[in-house]
């Protein structure tokens, strides 16, 4: 029972908690790099969510070979390949965004001399 529950739901729970943790970091931390890390965690959560929906406990790989039967009793038993390919794209996009965010963060540090968003806000006034 517990195992079944874990098997079915653990990844969803984990992914949504990652999103929650990431949001918490973004909303509460003052340091720009921590905010970027928070954004990254949100992205990881989303990616995990995408992989999790493609997977179920008894899935087989979605490649047709002599020993790998994709259908059992007329039901598809493969893992869904599409979200896995999507998640690759999402990871790349996340990488790009993070790189850009870090670049902006470095620039901000150069111009303002601080990474604290509150101090930056005061400096802008």
């Amino acid at each position, binding site marked *: 029972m517990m195992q079944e529950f874990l098997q079915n739901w653990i990844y969803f729970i984990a992914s949504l908690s990652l999103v929650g943790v990431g*949001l918490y970091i*973004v*909303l509460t931390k003052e340091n720009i790099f921590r*905010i970027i890390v928070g954004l990254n965690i949100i992205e990881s959560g989303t990616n995990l969510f995408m992989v999790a929906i493609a997977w179920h406990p008894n899935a087989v790989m979605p490649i047709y070979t002599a020993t790998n039967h994709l259908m059992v009793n007329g039901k598809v038993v493969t893992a869904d390949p599409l979200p896995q390919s999507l998640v690759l794209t999402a990871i790349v996009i996340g990488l790009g965004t993070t790189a850009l965010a870090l670049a902006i963060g470095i620039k901000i540090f150069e111009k303002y001399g601080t990474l604290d*968003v509150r101090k*930056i*806000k005061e400096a802008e006034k």
Partner: protein
Amino acid sequence: MNTNLIWLVAMPLIGSAVTAVVVRYKFLDRLITFLTFATTLFVLFLAHVGQSYSWTLKFLGTTLNLTLNVSHLSIFMLYISIAFGTVLAFYSLIDNSRMKGFLLLLVLAANNWIFMSNDMIGFFFAWELMGWASVVSVLGGREKEKSRHAALYYAMMSVAGSYSMLFGIFILWRLTGTFSISANIAYLSSIIGGHPWWVLGIVSLFFMTFMIKSGIFPFHTWVPLAYAYSPDAFTPFLSAAMSKYGVYGMLLFLPLGLLEKGFPTAFGVPWTNYIFLWFGVITAVVGTVLSIFQDDVKKLFAYSSLSNLGYVVAAIALFTPVGITAGIYHAFNHLLFEGALFITLLAVISRSGTSKLSEMGGLWKKMPITFFTFFVGIASAAGIPPFNGFGSKWLVYQAMIKQHLIFATILLFLASTGAFMYLFKAFHSIFLGQLSHDYERVKEVPIVGQIVEAFLMIAMIFFGVQPGYILKPIGAIVKSMGLKPLPVMANGYVAGMFSNVYMPLIGWSLVVSFIFGFILFYVSAEHKNVSQTDNYTAGQIPEDWGLTPETYQFSWNFYQPVEKLFVPFFRIKIDGFFRGIGDWTKATGSAIKEIFVGNAQMYAFFAIVGLIIFVIAGWMA
């Protein structure tokens, strides 16, 4: 299909495009403006009552019919406004205020479209066009900062009015599925018996716009500012012609209450009209009272103008034959004398360089033609027979008394008496008395201006002595509204309810008495000219007392004793109400602005909060 009607709108638009190109060359700009006005007037001669033109517009998902339609009322309004505009444009050839010809022509195009339009899309389009063109025109006044404020104030009122009308237009569209003005009014009159409050609500949306445009209480606050600080050459059109758009609009909607038999009445007037009548009466009184205490001559006549519009509104609100006749007649007279007065003020201000009464004086010898035009103008405004303001005021009183509206009549009489006070003040302060040293070298306006002034003077006398020429077309309008027109008499008569007045007789008697007075003046004791400040200072030099010569000018605090009487009433500030709305909006804006001064996290927080609220809403649903 009468294609000549489309030229009434297209002509000014083309002229406007041309003048916009040559806007840098002032004389060319004014010349083309005048020629366009004259051509439009010529095109108008080709228009007759009953003509119509319609074209289609693919818009709002359907094919809409835009219709131009010439009714008795619209052709009357067109003639008087375009003719006056032509005269003004002719004067503006020699004027050097910062009026832009293309804006005036845009207003003219809108003017023609408003008066002819039989569909609400065209009406609204023209109304908005007229609104912004006149707002931008007001910007060019002499006192830059003040005219900026005036233009903004006017624009806010105008925009608020437009949106209110827009709302009303679409409400009507939802109910009837058509934009045709006549069809919608027919619809409104068909449901007024069953749902009077609905109709009242919808019509109020329109009336707010019309009242703002005509400057009817409590929306009169923009009038003095916009009139006083607009370019001097634009003010005559603003006062004479543009205040009539509201009157025209009201005339379209006012019959509603009458069409339903058994609609509750007060004093024989539908109660809606009765309430509206009081807005007119209050405007007349308020305008007069405020006018008395102005030192800026353009402000003084701005209040005078709106006070006269109060008469017009009070009269047309009655919607009796004599009321409508009186209202339209007074609207015409208002156009003529107020236009003439503002043109003479334009002349005086362009020569003297000031609009302060306390800085003027004694100009009559320097500017005789202007002086006589002004004199006839104020005589008309005061309603002195045989000049043109008399007949209409007389009819207004008759219309009121006919309905036993004693109290309103008394108030209007009071306003009329007040009118004598401010008119005399202006007359005395500008032209009579001693000439100030600053104006020793002032000359009469150039010949073009003199021609215009003389023409207007003759027109005022002519329409005063021969009112039939104007009462006949008004009779046709009254008839076209389904009312019984007043009896048609010879040209010299003003035909009233109780008695008729033969104007030429009054005219001759006035001429005779004037000659008699003049003889008396000549045979009486000799008179001598003294300097302006001679008679107050008793040999003292005012500077020693820390006073300036202006304070000893006779028009300084001209009506101070009367002013004290009205002090309690000045505490009621309608203007303050509108400014209060503005301040409140601003304060709210400052508060709301604080949402957006956070940092990235704050914005992310808003987004998350928004998300959570929606999720909860979705949960509950």
